[in-house]
C-alpha cells in the first residue's frame, strides 16, 4: 500500500516548519492565482494546552498525489488522472462537471473550486495554473531540468521535499522511513516524527484536546 518507486511524493518535516506561509504564497504566485482564491497549499496551526503549557505546531498541506488517489476513484467523468509515468494526480478541466465528489473523497481537503465551479489543485508544478498539469510530459527532476515545486523552493526551513519516492526515501530519517513503511498516513505522504513534543503528537493523532486553526481556506 504505497507509491511506486518512480512516483512523486511529498515529504513534510513539522520540526522544520516555522509557519511562515511562504509555501502557500509561492504556490499562488507560481500558478498565477488570485490572492483571494482558495489555497492549493494550506498552512494550519495546530495548538494544544493553555499558557504557560501552550504548544503550537504549524502544518503545511496540499494534494499528496496519493498512490491510491481516492479522488480519482469517485470522479464520474474521469477528469482526475493518476498518471502512470510519474504518479502525479492531474485534473482535466475540460471534463470536470463540478460535482464536488472529489472534495468528499479527499482525506487532505486538497480540491478547490474556482468561480467557474471547476476543480483545481496542486499539480506538483508539472504545469502552471488550474488544470495546467493535464497532458504534460513526464515530470523531470531538477537534475533532469524540471522545475523545483514552488513550495519546496521557497520553504524557509526546508520542511517540504518532493520527488520520486526512491529519492525522497534516501533523504528522510530512519524513523520516518520506518513509519512510512509501516503504513503511516496510508502511505500517501512521508512525515517526519514530531520530536520536541511527543505528547502533543499523540494527542493530535488521537484527535483530542487540540485546536486546529486556519483550516478554513
Amino acid at each position, binding site marked *: 500500500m504505497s507509491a511506486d518507486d518512480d512516483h512523486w511524493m511529498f515529504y*513534510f518535516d*513539522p*520540526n522544520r516548519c516555522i509557519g511562515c506561509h511562504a509555501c502557500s504564497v509561492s504556490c499562488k504566485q507560481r500558478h498565477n492565482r488570485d490572492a483571494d482564491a482558495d489555497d492549493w497549499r494550506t498552512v*494550519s496551526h*495546530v495548538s*494544544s494546552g493553555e499558557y504557560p503549557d501552550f504548544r503550537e*505546531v504549524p*502544518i503545511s*498541506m496540499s494534494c499528496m498525489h496519493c498512490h491510491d488517489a*481516492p479522488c480519482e*476513484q*469517485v*470522479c*464520474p*467523468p*474521469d477528469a482526475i488522472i493518476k498518471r502512470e509515468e510519474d504518479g502525479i494526480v492531474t485534473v482535466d478541466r475540460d*471534463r*470536470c*462537471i*463540478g*460535482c*464536488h*465528489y472529489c*472534495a*468528499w*473523497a*479527499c*482525506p*487532505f*481537503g486538497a480540491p478547490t*473550486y474556482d468561480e*467557474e*465551479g*471547476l476543480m483545481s489543485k496542486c499539480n506538483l508544478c508539472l504545469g502552471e495554473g488550474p488544470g495546467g498539469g493535464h497532458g504534460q510530459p513526464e515530470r523531470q527532476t531538477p537534475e533532469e531540468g524540471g522545475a523545483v515545486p514552488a513550495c519546496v523552493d521557497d520553504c524557509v526551513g526546508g520542511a517540504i521535499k518532493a520527488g520520486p519516492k526512491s529519492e525522497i526515501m534516501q533523504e528522510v530519517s530512519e524513523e520516518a522511513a520506518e513509519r512510512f513503511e509501516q503504513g503511516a*498516513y496510508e502511505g500517501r*505522504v512521508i*512525515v*517526519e*516524527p*514530531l*520530536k520536541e513534543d*511527543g505528547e502533543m*503528537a499523540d494527542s*493530535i*493523532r488521537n*484527535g*483530542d*484536546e*487540540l*485546536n*486546529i*486553526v486556519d*483550516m*478554513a481556506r
Partner: protein
Amino acid sequence: MSTTISVLSAALAAAGNSEVIWHPADYWDLSIPVYLFLAVVAGGAYLTGASACLIRSLRGKGACCLETEIARWGFLVAIAAAAGAGLAVLSHLAVIYRAILFPIYLTNFDSWITIGTWILVLLSLFAVVCLLLQLFGEHAASDEGASLFPRTIVAWVSPVLLETIDGLVDRVRPPMSVFAGLHLLGSLFALGTIYTGFELAIVDTVPLWNDPVIIPALFLTSGVAAGIGATLALTMLFEREIGPVFAGYALTVSLLSAVSLALLYYGWILLAASDAPAAAASYATLTDGWYYVGAWLVVLGFVAPMIIGLVIGLATFADRLSPTLERVGGPALIGSFGLLLVGGLLFRILLLLAAAQNPLVVIG
C-alpha cells in the same frame, strides 16, 4: 453551511472538548439531499405501479379498476420524482451540458455518480413507457379516474392527437409476457436507486456516512416507503374506500417504515459508540438545537405510517374496519404518508448538514 460548523464547535465545547475548527464540509448544497431522496422515491413509486399491474393480472381484473388507477399514479409519481431528482442534481453542477451528455462524459463506472445516472435515466425511460401504455389506448379511453388527467391535457391540445396516440399505443401494446419482462427490468432499476446510499457510504472521510450496509439499506427502505406512500396518498385523494389492495400497500409501507426505524436506531447506536473525532462531532451536531428537533421529526416520519398502516391494514384484512375507522382511516393514512415524505427528506438533509470530515492533520 458555516452555521453548521459553528454549531458543531459550540456543541463540542459544551461537551467538554476544546474548541475545534474543522475543515468546512460544505461541498454540497441542499439540492443534493433532494436529489438523493427523489431518486429513491421514483424507485418506490415505480415499484408501486408495476406491482399494481401484477396484482391486477393475478386477480384477473379488467383494465378499468383500482389497480390501474394506482399503477397510473405510480408511474406518474415515478416520472415526476425522477425529473425532480435530475433537475436538483443538475442545478448543483458547474457544467450542466457535460452531465446531460453523460454517455460521452461520465466514463468512470467505478463512480456511483456514473452508475446512478444510468440507473435514474433508465428507470425514467421504463416509467415513461409504462405510463404511456396505461394512459392511452382503447381501454384507457373507456376508463375514468383522476389519474387520466394527462389525457385531458392532450385532448385539450388536440383531440386528433389523442386519437392518434391511442391508436399508436394499441398497435404497439406488447403481449403479457413482454409486459411482465418490462416491469421486472424496470423494478430492478427501481431497486437500483439504492445507489444513492452508496454515493455517501463509500466516502471514507465522513464517518457519519461511511457504512456500506446501514446507509444504503436505509436509503432504500425509507425512499421506497415514501414512493409507495406518495402514490397511495394521491390515489386515496380520489378513491376513498379502503379495500384489501390499499390495505396491502399500507402494510408494506408500515413494514418498510419499521425496518427503516430499526436501521436508524442501529446506526445511531454505532455513531454514539464511535470514537472517531468526526463521528463524535456529527453526533454532537445531531443532538443539538434544531438538529435534534429534526432528528425526532425523522423518527416521527417513520413511526406514524408504521402504526397507522399496521392498524388500518390489519383491521381491513380481519374485516374489522369500523365505520369510524373507515372514515378517519383514509385521511390518517394520507397524513402519515405526508410525514413519511417530510421525514425521508429531512433524514437526508440532516445527514448532509451533520457530516464532518475527519480532521485533517499531517503531523508527527
